[in-house]
């Protein structure tokens, strides 16, 4: 059966062989599996190669500013939690320019799935280091090699209190689809950091580099044990774990608003005169 999420889209402009193609395919399959219709899905992104995804998936989309996808989701979730919301962006977008939003929205626990295409490089601006670039990686700007310690998104997310933390790899499509489906279904903020080779600008972390290292998290890992998840999240090098690190549920941002929110969207029923009582508080 044709995938409805791949119809009526723009044509991807990614480089041939780019890992983003696998993410697009996995996302479209995950959305079919979740069983939603395109008009019930909202994709929010920032700017970068990854962030072009709303143009390549048939769904509602808000392609905003570099680093600012999560705040857009805050507003959207506040007024219409009926849409299934997915944030798609790159490592630079999410962990660099948007770092503050990353921290604080994990704390908020929006009910969204957050898919970060982590190619360990700035693709769109042609190959500078990103927050996740490995130490020593040389680029046109980091001419002597990267000297800042790489940002570890999974351990940061776990430390700040994320309830769903996972890592995927574009080289294992079926596994990735499962992760994306789980993340979309999870009631709360779900982070999936996706190892995504950039064939053009990252000559270190190539497809085969990852393939030699990724290992699925063993079945006996307890996904409700945060300390165990943190230990796993610190593994990077010869062995890179993929899969679900951590999964527990807690109250969401949307739950906290349930009493306050009225008219989820649209104001057809609203009449300013119904608010007249507000001035009673100021009568002399």
């Amino acid at each position, binding site marked *: 059966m044709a995938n409805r999420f791949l119809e*009526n889209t*723009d044509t991807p402009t990614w480089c041939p062989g780019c890992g983003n193609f696998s993410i697009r395919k996995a996302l479209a399959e995950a959305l079919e599996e979740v069983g939603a*219709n*395109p*008009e*019930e899905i*909202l994709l*929010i992104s920032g*700017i970068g190669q990854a962030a*072009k995804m*709303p*143009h390549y998936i*048939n*769904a*509602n*989309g*808000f*392609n*905003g*500013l570099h680093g*600012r996808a*999560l*705040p*857009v*989701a*805050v*507003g*959207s979730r*506040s*007024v*219409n939690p*009926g*849409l299934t919301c997915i944030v798609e962006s790159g490592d630079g977008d999410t962990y660099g320019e948007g770092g*503050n*939003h990353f*921290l*604080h929205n994990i704390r908020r626990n929006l009910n969204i799935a957050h898919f970060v295409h982590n190619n360990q490089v700035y693709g769109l601006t042609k190959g500078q280091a990103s927050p996740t670039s490995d130490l020593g990686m040389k680029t046109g700007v980091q001419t002597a090699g990267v000297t800042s310690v790489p940002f570890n998104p999974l351990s940061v997310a776990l430390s700040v209190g994320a309830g769903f933390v996972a890592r995927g790899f574009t080289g294992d499509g079926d596994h990735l689809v499962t992760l994306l489906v789980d993340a979309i279904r999870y009631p709360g903020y779900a982070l999936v950091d996706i190892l995504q080779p950039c064939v053009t600008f990252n000559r270190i972390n190539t497809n085969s580099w990852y393939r030699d290292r990724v290992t699925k998290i063993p079945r006996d890992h307890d996904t409700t044990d945060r300390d165990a998840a943190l230990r796993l999240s610190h593994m990077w090098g010869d062995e890179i774990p993929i899969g679900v690190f951590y999964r527990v549920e807690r109250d969401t941002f949307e739950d906290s*608003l349930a009493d*306050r*929110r*009225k*008219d*989820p*969207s*649209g*104001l057809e029923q*609203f*009449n*300013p*005169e119904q*608010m*007249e009582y*507000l*001035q009673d508080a*100021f*009568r*002399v």
Partner: protein
Amino acid sequence: MDIHVIVGGAAGQGMDTLAGTLGKLLAHFGFGVLSARDYMSRIRGGHNFSILRAADTTPWAFENRCDLLVCLDETTYLEHIPKLTEDGVFIFDPESFAPPGDRRGVEVPMKDLATEAGGRIMANTVALGACLAVLDLPTTRAEEMLLEAFAHKEGVGEQNIGALRAGYDAVDGPALPVNMPEEGRAGGSRIFLEGNEVLGMSAAASGCRFFCAYPMTPATGIMTYLAGIEDSGVVVEQAEDEIAAINAILGASYTGARSMTATSGGGFSLMAEGISLAGMTETPAVIVLAQRPGPATGFPTRTDQGDLSFALNVGHGEFPRPVLSATHHEDAFYRLNKAFDLADRFQTPVIFLSDQNFADTARTVDEYDFSRLSCDQHLADPAEVELPYRRYALTPDGISPRALPGQLDSQVVLADSDEHDERGFIVEDAATREAMMRKRMGKTSAIAEEMDEPLYHGPEEPEVLLVGWGSTYGALREARAVLEESGTNAGHLHFADIWPLRTDQLGELLAAAEVSYCVEANYTGQFADLVRRETGWEFDHRVLRFDGRPFTPSDIIGEVSGDGK
């Protein structure tokens, strides 16, 4: 009657409560009241005072004078005694300081009496009682208010009534008796509220469903007000920074809610890119900019109109940026509603300029007419929209039918910050870029049609023309009235809608007037610059104040009189 009352002390001594209660009382008795806080940017200590003016008709501005001075500390006395009028009265506590002999002094042992009544914390209630005695006003209503205020604290209301009466009895006799206004004006249909409350209430009544901001003086009061009206349906979220705030309201607006944010200059600087995003994605948004003196942190608790040029140009690239302003408490309630309507009709960000002078000043006004507010999101009519849906469909007036995600059966909505085609897809080609620029910028002329002519008071052909915008309205209005009484043929033209600029009436009046003054609270004369840029016209004089304090009518009269008029 027309009196100025100043209540001063260190932060934490409760002058705010005292002044607020006195203001409400005077309003209740039927006087028109204006009150404001002059506070330093700290929580304890320093010199802080509240100023209150009450008169038979509601005053528009403060003068630099005082008829009743309540000194909770010596600094207040030293700071304000020079402006106490001949017949004025000051109340002081001999325990705090001993002023030199002065027949105007009324000694009230505020702290002692408060202690006797149950606690020193009630010294301000003692002072309130003393004020009522000095003014020869009854204490009954004040007693009711104290009981209401402390209804949740067993016995505290009664203790405060004791303190109030002790203060009342400590005064020998009315030293500054005021005549009560005629019967019938008291209470009833009038309300007394601060500028930030006017804007908050207007937003809620305009159907704003999402408010997101990061605290910054003097804008914070809007967020506090909206958070406090819990059953209003407005979701209030404190953002992690102003960049988040602006992007969040765009997300909410795109999704379907009328949305607003509020900040001051520093936060507005951080919002610049987001405002540009609203322009490009054609997402309605209302941004309140409550100005305070910059640059940088500047004077956090004082007033200024120095961000006009910035507001007119905020955000990179070219897109329509309508700018409206708060002139006074009556008008601002309806004008913020207009900001929401413009934002929705023209699918654009709208900037609403306020400032500390407006935000923190309370004024009595007749109750608002909520039926004058509109709430129409101007969404696409599902029966008429062409399918497949194109968010940025090219139309003769540049306004594309706006649908919300999920609103149209089996249709999706794509908003894009890149230059895009009608569907919202990224483009690079010159022809589409040109068409989209024309579409977005083409909305400007229709927005211009919606701008109100400025408000005018005065003769058709004034000799002296005073021009202003925003919160200087009150000072200018009083100044004009005084000038007229003293025989000067003066007119006052005031802009609430600023951009796109209306110039017809200004042109006629400038041609008629012998001398013109543009009055604004900034260093360069940014509004005068705007007028010159748009028309080539130059005012004869720019009357500028940039010390962080609001204009008084006398400041303006002095400038005009000094000119030999």
